[in-house]
């Protein structure tokens, strides 16, 4: 069953309701936890923007996969799950660096973004290596899901970092 045709034509109201409510709930939890634990406007914006960009990247990647492979099944929803989870982990590491370091003497926001950059690079290296090895051992739809997940996760992390560079500028 093609994922786009299924969503547009065949989904029941109940399906739409629970998928939308879980997506909204997860976004709210991400933003709310940034607000409650980090208590920094930039961190809230960072979490909010990231929770929007990663699903957009996933939709784009699935759309491209649909064009290239002509049929993309509902199993591709795992691309969304893997990407948003890895992107959320990336966001949380920056927020936690911020919480741990902001009360230190001579606090430098550049240190936080540099640490986040180094962490993001390591995470990308891990994803790249792990997914590449698994892709070489798998075939069919699973391989395509792994490729799509790997690309969208890496893109999400890169965009997260770019957003953090804009939001967490020195002196702001």
């Amino acid at each position, binding site marked *: 069953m093609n994922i786009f045709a299924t969503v547009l034509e065949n989904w029941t109201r109940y399906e739409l309701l629970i998928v939308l409510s879980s997506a909204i709930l*997860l976004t709210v939890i991400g933003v709310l936890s940034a607000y409650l634990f980090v208590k920094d406007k930039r961190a809230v914006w960072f979490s909010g923007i990231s929770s929007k960009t990663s699903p957009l990247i996933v939709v784009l990647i699935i759309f491209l996969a649909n064009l290239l492979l002509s049929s993309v099944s509902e199993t591709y929803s795992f691309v969304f799950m893997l990407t948003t989870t890895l992107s959320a*982990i990336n966001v949380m590491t920056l*927020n936690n660096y911020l919480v741990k370091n902001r009360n230190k003497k001579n606090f430098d926001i550049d240190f936080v973004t540099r640490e986040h950059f180094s962490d993001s690079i390591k995470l990308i290296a891990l994803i790249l290596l792990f997914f590449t090895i698994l892709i070489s051992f798998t075939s069919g739809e699973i391989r395509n899901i792994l490729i799509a997940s790997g690309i969208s996760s890496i893109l999400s992390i890169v965009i997260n970092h770019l957003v953090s560079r804009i939001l967490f500028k020195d002196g702001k």
Partner: protein
Amino acid sequence: MKKVKISFDNLKLGPIFSYLFLVLISSLLIVICLISLPLTEQFQDKVSYNLITKENMYWSKEYTLELETSQVPEIDRDGYIEKTRDILFRRLNRAGVEEVSVTKEISEEKDVLKVTVKSSKNAALVDNLVQNRFKVNVVTRKEDVDFDNEEDPYAYLLGENYNKTDFDGSTFRNVLITELRNSSGEYSFFAIFKPNITKKKAFDEFLDGKEGETIGVDTDGFVTPYYVPDTNPKTFAIPVTGGESQSTLLSLLYNSGEIPLSYTATETRDLEIENDSLNYIQLSIAILVAIVIVHLTLLFVVKEDSKNISRSLLSTMITISTWIAYLKISSTPIDTWLLALECILSVILIYVLIHNKESQIAITTSMVISFFIMMILGIGYMRIFGKEMILLLLISQFSIAFGKWYLDNMRKNLGK
């Protein structure tokens, strides 16, 4: 707020005991690793260490349901059809059916719903969930019917021998299927009907008015009798026959909503399954190679701290081995591709948790919440994935704490 942290730091043992304990733990780890490896089942006849994969358990069907919409006002027709689709989907999703699609084909002659299912669940359970409308009504006995007539012993079962009341499925907020002690003192399953707060008073008054009489619950034309006791409070509970499997089915049918339209299953067609299965042996090799290469690269290329890398490697191995060993010993069937995704996420999570100690609590808490939401609100495979990831996260947390303790003690003992 007090932080909850798993710690093995306070476990102090004498040097000999400590050494023996480490040997014992190491043996246990080797055993777990061996059980989790593929083909180890061939070395042990007494216990089965097979990993049960779901690939051969899948079946697929398409049900054609013809809806009876001729008696429904035109203005309500679309709403009723949508509600019927929703409830059928909800029933199947709650039952853990992996892939469900409920599509409608509306024409002037007839309204049809096509329910397409791909599942590893019991086919009879799914058949029952799709083909039964399960319309519930509380009924009272007709006065002109002789229920004691020996020539018609089944009179008490037929809905036509009863009068309908105003109390139907919408009267009850929930039907709890549970084991209760019956009149002979043994435990058996009962369906306890819990009325909505707004209808509770009217329903209680109805029961009070029927004290000492037999009423019943009509389900799709078949009645289960209920003798109204003259004691208070009255628990409106009817017996459920057929054991645990039947109670699971009934719980789903009672609690997924009331289908507003009558329908008939006109056709059931078996569908071919496109199984894109992964070879479990190939997958095990891939995961093992990937874990080792990733950690070696992080150690030699990225120049990560060797202590962290060894901890991450050990914790990852323990987590994945324990998970696969658990699946094998408990004979839990699993999709190989889902296992692959679970392993990927676990490896990355363990690495991130070990390398970002300051974020451990935040990451673990948010991941548990996310997977819990997935388990409750997810569809098909996502539900299964959310549930299994919560278990894997718990194992990971234990493995990380245990890995630190084990490596520290190993270094201490080997350094002596």
